[in-house]
């Protein structure tokens, strides 16, 4: 007996070895396909909810209010008069929700000069409290302070009162049309419309408790404010740290500590940054940040993406050939002159690409914003770093967490906006990188 097989046994074994190899190769290919299918399912699922039939009815049809039913064509005075006619008791509520600068609990007890600080109101009423103001004066206040868009959306919500009775997904809408129409026929007052939950109104309307008229303008503006502060804070510091580590740092324990620390920070879960922001920016520095504001959120996000910006910038700076630095030193430039005039311009496309990618992470980040307390329901747009705010991912979270299907549909619409935003940012990062590459090779 020697250890070798005879030819027949060998070729049999070879066949089974190859068979096993082929089966596993199929598994490997399958796992790639499963990942791609998951991606496709994710996109289809979102599109499926964002478009489809909706059965809606009105408390008062728009055509009963105005000839032709186009509310937006009326001027502010007509709109406020309409509001006063149909909802006379709620005028003070609109003032509270849209114009008040103070907490709801003291809204009725403080004088107008405090309640409406910075808004326009009749001078004579400065020391009056809300219950003392007449309906006519409330109308004046609403008319003078609200924009046309705000008035239109209040009318839509409070007077016309669109109710979404039922929604259908895109697949149902396409395949079960007869059944849907049968259900619609049972509600003669309601009308069946094919609704894209993502439309211009959706982008321009403020948040609302009614899914039919709710929009994401406040959320988009909130996200923009947060991102602007994030960049203003994280970009200079991140690039500064990268320059220090690449151009100045020598192999000392302190510098190694900084380097290791940055790598570790990149792996800390985002919700921990939320807790950090809550304790430091929202509570400890409340006198500066005014609590749960855009500023606190931006600084927290800044800390979150700082390690990513540093690591990406380091790579970009490292890629600058050292001959450029040596030539600059040889001409008598100081270290900083070399960095500022030679290294940074050469590394800038790479740094910008890395920063955009880091920002696209920040814009979708939800958990830290929840922890530091983004408001769940605000109607006024953020106007300064010290405004309370909501953000696009927070809005998606809120709507998804609600059980009503119409809010899920609105969430799907908001997700599409978020994904388009991310796609644009990533595409611009790739574009920047490609252009830079071409420049280097040319």
């Amino acid at each position, binding site marked *: 007996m020697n250890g070798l097989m005879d030819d027949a046994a060998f070729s049999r074994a070879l066949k089974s070895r190859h068979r096993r190899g082929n089966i596993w190769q199929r598994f490997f290919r399958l796992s790639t396909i499963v990942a791609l299918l*998951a991606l496709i399912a994710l996109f289809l699922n979102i599109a499926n909810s964002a478009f489809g039939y909706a059965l809606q009815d009105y408390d008062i049809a728009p055509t009963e209010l105005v000839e032709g039913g186009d509310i937006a064509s009326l001027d502010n005075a007509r709109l406020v008069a309409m509001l006063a006619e149909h909802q006379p008791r709620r005028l003070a509520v609109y003032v509270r929700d849209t114009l008040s600068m103070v907490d709801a609990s003291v809204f009725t007890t403080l004088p107008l000069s405090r309640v409406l600080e910075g808004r326009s109101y009749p001078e004579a009423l400065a020391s009056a409290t809300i219950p003392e103001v007449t309906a006519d004066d409330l109308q004046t206040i609403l008319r003078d302070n609200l924009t046309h868009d705000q008035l239109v959306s209040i009318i839509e919500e409070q007077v016309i009162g669109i109710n979404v009775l039922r929604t259908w997904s895109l697949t149902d809408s396409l395949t079960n049309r007869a059944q849907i129409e049968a259900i619609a026929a049972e509600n003669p007052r309601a009308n069946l419309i094919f609704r894209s939950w993502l439309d211009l109104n959706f982008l321009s309307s403020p948040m609302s408790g009614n899914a039919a008229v709710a929009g994401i303008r406040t959320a988009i503006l909130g996200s923009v404010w947060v991102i602007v502060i994030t960049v203003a804070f994280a970009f200079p510091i991140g690039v500064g740290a990268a320059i*220090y580590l690449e151009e100045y740092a020598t192999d000392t324990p302190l510098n190694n500590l*900084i380097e290791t*620390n940055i790598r570790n920070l990149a792996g800390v879960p985002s919700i*921990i*940054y939320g807790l950090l922001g809550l304790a430091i920016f929202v509570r400890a520095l409340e006198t500066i940040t005014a609590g749960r504001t855009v500023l606190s959120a931006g600084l927290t996000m800044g800390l979150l993406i700082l390690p990513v910006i540093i690591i990406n910038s380091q790579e970009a700076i490292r890629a600058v050939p050292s001959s450029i630095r040596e030539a600059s030193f040889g001409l008598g430039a*100081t270290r900083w002159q070399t960095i500022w005039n030679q290294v940074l311009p050469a590394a800038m496309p790479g740094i910008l690409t890395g920063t955009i990618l880091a920002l696209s992470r920040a814009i979708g980040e939800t958990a830290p914003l*929840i*922890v530091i307390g983004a408001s769940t329901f605000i109607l006024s747009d953020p106007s300064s770093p010290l405004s309370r705010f909501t953000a696009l991912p927070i809005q998606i979270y809120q709507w998804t967490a609600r059980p009503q299907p119409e809010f899920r549909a609105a969430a799907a619409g908001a997700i599409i906006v978020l994904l388009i935003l991310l796609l644009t940012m990533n595409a611009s990062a790739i574009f920047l990188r490609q252009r830079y590459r071409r420049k280097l090779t040319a």
Partner: protein
Amino acid sequence: MSNRNLSITTPLDIGRDPRLLNARLKRQDSTEPILTKQARPGEMLIRAFLLFCGLLSVFTTIGIVVVLGSESLLFFNSGVATLTEFFTATRWQPQAGEFGIMPLLSATITTSIVAMFVALPLGLGAAIYLGEYARPNVRATLKPILEILAGIPTVVYGYFALTFMTPLLRGMFGQDTVQIYNNAAAGLVMGVMILPTIASMSEDALSAVPRSLREASYGLGATRFETITKVVLPAALSGIIAAFLLGVSRAVGETMIVALAAGAGPCVLGDTCFNPFAAGETMTGHIARISGGDLSYNSVDYNSLFSIGLTLFVFTLLLNLISRSVSKRFREVYQ
């Protein structure tokens, strides 16, 4: 007379001012070069600012440790729970004064295990396919598409888990078995989220294995599959382990998917915990839910969040450190 403005001292100057002679002699005696480095306060200031930028990341870490530590200390000193109770008590019910982290921890473990059951085989499979089998042009198209998965915000995955995966699971296993909020749907979608991370790190590890090893294996008559499983994978094992650990750390720290799909209340230990089809709030999910509501500072609820946060931080930090030290070892072998 015009010599005065020049820095070179000539004998003529010395004759005029004897002090210059002393200065010249002194310079010749010393070993110092005549051209010394000029002090530049501006440069020093910039350097100090850049160092500060670098140090800010260290301050962030210190800030995290101090904040989590001090608030946790307040929590443990308030008398509602001792450290031992915190880790051994079996119920988390702040209203009843019970603070045992086990139910939250077990839900975190359940979702993470489900996630890794999806992410590890599929991620590794995709890495092997893309790295070892796929033709270059196929690879060049598939890889960026796979990377899209890594860029999707987690709240979108949460939406996907709740509106797609949950109904799918309930359709497959029955409405009675699978609850509306359950760890399985959250875990499966989390697995999809982590998959690209595992795939790209594993692929890096596989491609770092030298060609010569593969060629030697082929030369001995091994099939491609045998080469992969018996030569390439063992050689890349430390890199794959590092990827796995990093994946676990991301699963443990993931918030939005579990906040939306895994349930809004701690599971009951001994009953529904570790049942993937039952609802169970994870550590991150609990922090998100409680802090999302109206939370008053200095309450026990508020402090308890930080003690959960500290547990989470220590867990993920350990996983990251082990992952990095494992992958460092692997780098030393082949470069």
